[in-house]
């Protein structure tokens, strides 16, 4: 087993050799990742089932297919993305070539999470490979089976010189972070994120942090409650609520809540039957420790359980649970829930709901359900969040065209699709000048005179809309 330092040195040597630069190499690696997923779908599904009791449907759609989709999109567009983009110039620089090159950063570190153990580590890796970097993957040790599988499969399919998997817990990760990377991509919690940023500061390493937060779901105004309830229930209890973009809590008026609850019961019944514990489609909590935390929250909560509440420690099962009359000060409102527990808080007006959300940290996602487009627009314009989705949950993150990332306490940077490529690239501004036009240059040299200055002003200030502005300095 190679030590961390040896692995890093090997990767650095590979990067310096330039092997990751040609588009052909990058495409070959991406296609190899595709084969990895196609050849091993069954084992992957089994591993995720072992870790999270992840239903096959969820594992296929939200894990395997998300990565496959990103791979297809990246493979078909990579050549275009790699082309330099030419930019506008002004009169003084008309004969010059000004363009932006996307260049690899070097060695990147990708730290995955346990809730979507495949997607959250392979999706960033796609961007890292596409951008021409070498990468070290540090999968979450909590999703043990998937970690083990990744450690086995990655070296089998991808270049062992350029990409490595390093396994371990907090201690190993700490040690890993003492090394110098050219970018660190972390998905996880805010407290660990702070440590990562501090470690990155030592080497001035740029960082992408995909964190979480309490994603609010505001339901207001005229609304098709049946559809809204279905989508809300689907988004909330997907992966047993263990999604960074799951609707964390609901804000609505008492009347809306009274209309909502029967439809939620109906939706839950149609999804998971009368006893969700028997349903193959209901996930489980990842570890005993996480289960204990959630049960503790439920016990301490002062809200009233109106749906669910059942649990089984042996199988780490918690029933889809909904509580009402939850107050701001309730334990359920103090941290990201990350489980199948949905508190409903009542508000009296849209303003109250918006103010409530704005008094809190910016979440990774914010949801507004309403048939009134004015309500949706108002919420969108008066709040801030990583991403926003109206009248549905989670699905906005499946769109490769949208940058997926947080803001404020929910994170920094973004990825998915072309955004991944850009995240792992350096945008290098390039200017190629000729020897001519030295007569124009003369204007900028000392001795400085007023008349030269006037000519330069004329030659370099942009005259019309769309022209790139320019100046001497």
């Amino acid at each position, binding site marked *: 087993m190679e030590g961390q330092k040896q692995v890093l040195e090997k990767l650095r040597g590979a990067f*310096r050799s330039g092997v990751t*630069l040609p588009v052909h190499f990058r495409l070959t690696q991406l296609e190899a990742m595709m084969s990895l997923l196609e050849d091993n779908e069954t084992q992957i599904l089994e591993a995720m089932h072992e870790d999270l009791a992840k239903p096959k449907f969820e594992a*296929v*759609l939200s894990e395997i297919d998300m990565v496959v*989709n990103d791979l297809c*999109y990246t493979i078909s567009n990579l050549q275009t993305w790699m082309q330099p983009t030419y930019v506008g110039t002004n009169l003084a*620089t008309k004969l010059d070539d*000004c363009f*932006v090159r996307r260049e690899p*950063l070097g060695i990147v570190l990708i730290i995955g999470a346990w809730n979507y153990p495949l997607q959250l580590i392979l999706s960033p890796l796609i961007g890292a490979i596409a951008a021409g970097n070498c990468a070290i993957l540090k999968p979450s040790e909590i999703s043990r089976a998937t970690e083990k599988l990744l450690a086995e499969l990655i070296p089998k399919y991808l270049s062992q010189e350029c990409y490595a998997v390093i396994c371990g817990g907090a201690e190993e990760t700490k040690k890993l972070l003492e090394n110098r990377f050219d970018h660190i991509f972390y998905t996880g919690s805010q407290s660990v994120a702070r440590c990562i*940023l*501090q470690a*990155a*500061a*030592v080497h*001035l390493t*740029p960082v992408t942090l995909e964190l979480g937060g309490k994603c609010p779901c505001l339901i207001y105004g005229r609304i098709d409650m049946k*559809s*809204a309830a279905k*989508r809300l229930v*689907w988004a909330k209890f997907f992966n047993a609520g263990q999604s960074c973009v799951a609707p964390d809590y609901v804000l609505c008026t008492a009347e809306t809540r009274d209309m909502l609850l029967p439809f939620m019961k109906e939706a839950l019944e149609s*999804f998971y039957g009368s006893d969700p514990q028997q349903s193959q*489609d209901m996930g489980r909590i990842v570890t005993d420790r996480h289960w204990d935390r959630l049960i503790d929250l439920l016990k301490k909560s002062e809200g009233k359980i109106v749906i669910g509440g059942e649990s089984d420690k042996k199988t780490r099962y918690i029933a889809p649970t909904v509580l009402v009359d939850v107050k701001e000060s309730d334990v359920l409102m103090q941290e990201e829930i990350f489980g199948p527990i949905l508190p409903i808080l009542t508000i009296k007006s849209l303003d109250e709901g918006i103010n409530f959300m704005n008094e809190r940290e910016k979440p990774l996602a914010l949801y507004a359900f309403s048939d009134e487009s004015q309500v949706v627009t108002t919420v*969108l314009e008066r709040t801030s*969040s*990583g*991403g*926003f*989705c*109206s009248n549905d949950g989670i*699905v*906005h993150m499946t*769109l490769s065209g*949208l940058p*997926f990332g947080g*803001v*404020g306490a929910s994170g920094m940077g973004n990825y998915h699709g072309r955004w991944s490529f850009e995240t792992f690239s*350096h*945008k*290098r501004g*390039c*200017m*190629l*000048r000729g*020897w001519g036009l*030295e007569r124009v240059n003369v204007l900028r*040299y*000392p*001795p*400085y005179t007023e008349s030269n*200055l006037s000519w*330069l002003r004329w030659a*370099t*200030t*942009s005259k019309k*809309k769309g022209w*790139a*502005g*320019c100046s001497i*300095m």
Partner: protein
Amino acid sequence: MSREQKAVERARKAFLTGRSQSLEYRINQLKNLLRFVRERQKEIAEGLKKDLRRSECGTPLYETLGLESEINLAVRNLKEWAAPRPVSKSMMTISDQVYIQPEPLGLVLVIGAWNYPWAVTIGPLIGAIAAGNAAVIKPSEVSSHTSKVMEDFLPLYLDKELYPVVTGGVTETQELLKQRFDHIFYTGNGTVAKIIMEAAAKHLTPTTLELGGKSPCYIDKNCELDVACRRIAWGKYLNCGQTCIAPDYILCDPSMQDRVIQEIKKNIKDFYTEDPKKCLDYGRIINERHFKRLMGLLEGSTIAVGGENDESECYIGPTILKDVKPDAKVMQEEIFGPLLPILTVSSADEAIKFINEREKPLALYIFSSEDKLIKRMIAETSSGGVVANDCLMHFSVSSLPFGGVGNSGMGCYHGKHGFDNLSHLRGCLIKKLKMENVNKMRYPPHTADKIGWARFFMLKHIDFGSLGRMAMLALMVIFVAVIVQRYYTD
């Protein structure tokens, strides 16, 4: 509550009122900033003269012209920059709105530097204002006269609460860094940058760091040496070498060294006369500490041109060092002064190797008439930016992102890049509650064929360019009909 805390709280409160959101307001503030730059040229020039002995023309040329240009660009394009940016959809979201909405981050801290105090302090501020943020402006205390001009006059033009100027030294900056910001934009050196990033870590604040490094300047045998040397001399001795993207050192073939020295010497004379000390167009070192530091760097190297100095005036004449060795003192840190070392290399390969053995610089300069060589050097090295056959000029093209990589920094600005860098690009999916039947295939209980349909619908990408819209709609109708028929009775 400390003075810094008060300023921060006031700015945040002002931001929360929402007044910086409207484009009109932002444009108004930007126009006021423009007026300030134009109306206060005299005060600005005086401050710069006292701080850096900047000449009369040097002020507009190297500081304010650039700002005017950036402000005008922002004002003209703000509507477009701030508008929703539509993106590609998937089949499942065909009837939805999918776009990116740029939004303000909130409160930005801009920490300026002393070498081009206006360009690097107000430059980022333009992006901050354009993006709708509030901003605390912390000018460098080292350029103290300019700092005072900012403190005295900016509040007369800009919203005092939204854009306060907080002056001070290390203590005041540390106090500022204890507060929470939504972005910190720092221009300066790597040592302080690490402290800033660490302080930012506590609040999970993103940072833009515009640092420096030793920007190499490679002169190929095949080039117009006279023009090259003129441009290099200009780029190097501007502001007495105190430019983050000044060509730090030269790499060239040994056979060229003497001619390079001659040519640069000639241009020094053309620019600054026989006695640069008396020339108004030649500046001074910012302070005694830097003067002493630079004099120390001369140790162990051979002076080919210049070397004259006068501590009482912090004057160091334009200096060229020859036959410099890689382990010389002058090669151990960013020079940031009018000392130009020449190191000899026997080939472009050796130059590339030399450059790559060192930290990634903020700029790389390549002087060559051979296109292929230029392209090769660009491809085989890394740096913040590159200019072939000139120096510094890429700073002035607003459409090029200006920033470092590795030790030379992170993030970028200028033009739209400045706007985007200080915005949050929020991904938005606007759906309606209709067409719920299409959603049925994603809901449990999960069956094998549902997986098939869902796989097809949810994740495929639609490129409206290649498929006719009508054809798509027709396909959509057929598929919806099939699904409704299959699952409607569930």
